């Protein structure tokens, strides 16, 4: 069998493609782009919650939030590591992010206005991420699938700490309950957008499904997320901000309202509430750290020279 036949055969048998195997250029490019975007999302995703670490109300919440944000850094690095197996260079990927040549998830372009946002991000944003990511543990590219297994194990802590935080607030004062409802109102629709455009307008999906990079369509995963979230919202005692949301016994699923795709496109295109700040922050962190990276490299070079 030639390389192409081995590749097709590997996919047909539902086995994993490994970095040194032959693969179509399009597969390699798609994989690098998807893994890089995913990595960038984890790195940018540190910012909305990181902003609350110093203001967390108790030492317990501070320690939890610190661990969570550290996990997100870790997830970004697992993914950059997977991208490097395909010949990408993580320094180059970071530059592409900073220069706006590669994207990250639009969800992180919304602001975190109150501490309830930390809880709702854990519950809804990480909940949506888990829906998206669990099937990626069976993605056809081995290093990506393995990174996703580690990530999914850790995401479960993220979602549970968020939900627990919200339950605590809901058993507090009326003002705290109002804060949770307000955060739910602001994050619900952007969370639904995390699954990407509707299937009919997602031109790359079919190829990604054929290559077994993706396992389920955007709409399928979005529906799964809505069905999961409704009883969770009820248990919490919050209302999801969608008057059209109701159980459809015929379909065995919840119907839900129309998503504002114009807003989604606007945020993707860079005009969301926080796009400028997120990239500026990342750029500043990169620039501020440059001298440290150079000094460490110079120190290592000097020491290895001295050993010779």
């Amino acid at each position, binding site marked *: 069998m030639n390389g192409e036949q081995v590749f097709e055969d590997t996919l047909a048998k539902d086995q994993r493609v*490994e970095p*040194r195997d032959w693969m179509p250029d399009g597969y390699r490019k798609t994989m690098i782009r998807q893994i890089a975007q995913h990595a960038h999302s984890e790195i940018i995703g540190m910012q909305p919650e990181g902003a609350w670490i110093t203001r967390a109300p108790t030492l317990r919440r501070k320690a939890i939030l610190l*661990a969570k944000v550290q*996990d997100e850094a870790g997830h970004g690095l697992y993914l950059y590591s997977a991208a*490097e197996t395909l010949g990408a260079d993580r*320094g180059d990927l970071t530059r592409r992010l900073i220069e706006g040549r590669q994207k990250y998830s639009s969800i992180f372009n919304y602001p975190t206005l109150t501490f309830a946002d930390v809880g709702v991000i854990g519950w809804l944003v990480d909940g949506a991420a888990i829906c998206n990511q669990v099937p990626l543990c069976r993605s056809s590219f081995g*290093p990506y699938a393995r990174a996703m297994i580690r990530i999914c194990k850790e995401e479960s802590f993220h979602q549970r700490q968020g939900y627990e935080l919200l339950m605590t607030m809901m058993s507090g004062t009326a003002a705290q309950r109002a804060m949770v409802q307000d955060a739910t109102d602001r994050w619900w629709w952007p969370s639904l957008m995390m699954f990407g455009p509707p299937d009919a307008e997602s031109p790359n999906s079919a190829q990604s499904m054929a290559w077994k990079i993706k396992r389920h369509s955007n709409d399928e995963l979005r529906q799964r997320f809505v069905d999961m979230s409704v009883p969770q919202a009820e248990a919490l005692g919050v209302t999801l901000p969608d008057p059209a949301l109701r159980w459809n016994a015929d379909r065995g699923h919840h119907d839900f309202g129309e998503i504002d795709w114009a807003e989604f496109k606007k945020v993707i295109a860079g005009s969301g509430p926080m796009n400028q700040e997120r990239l500026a922050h990342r750029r500043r962190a990169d620039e501020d750290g440059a001298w440290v990276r150079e000094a*460490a490299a110079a120190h290592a070079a000097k*020491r*290895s020279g001295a050993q010779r």
Partner: protein
Amino acid sequence: MSDEIKHEWPLFEVFVRAKRGLNHVHVGSLRAADHEMALHHARDLYTRRNEGVSIWVVRSDDVVSSGPGDKDAFFAPSGDKAYRHPTYYAIPDSVPHI
């Protein structure tokens, strides 16, 4: 671009021993200026939840591996050596402990 990435740290492969009695297993890679920093980063990155009791780091440049194209030359010969496996030998059921 080569000028831009002049100070890029080299890539290291990371292997973690999950617990005593098990082999070190490859878990991923990271960037570090030298081996010592690679070990510290590996601790922070790959063992945040008691995943290991020991870590190896190896410069990725120093890893030599067989390629997918070598598969036949390397691994095909073992395919026709069924006599290396215990089930190749027929022993009556009446013979115990064998």
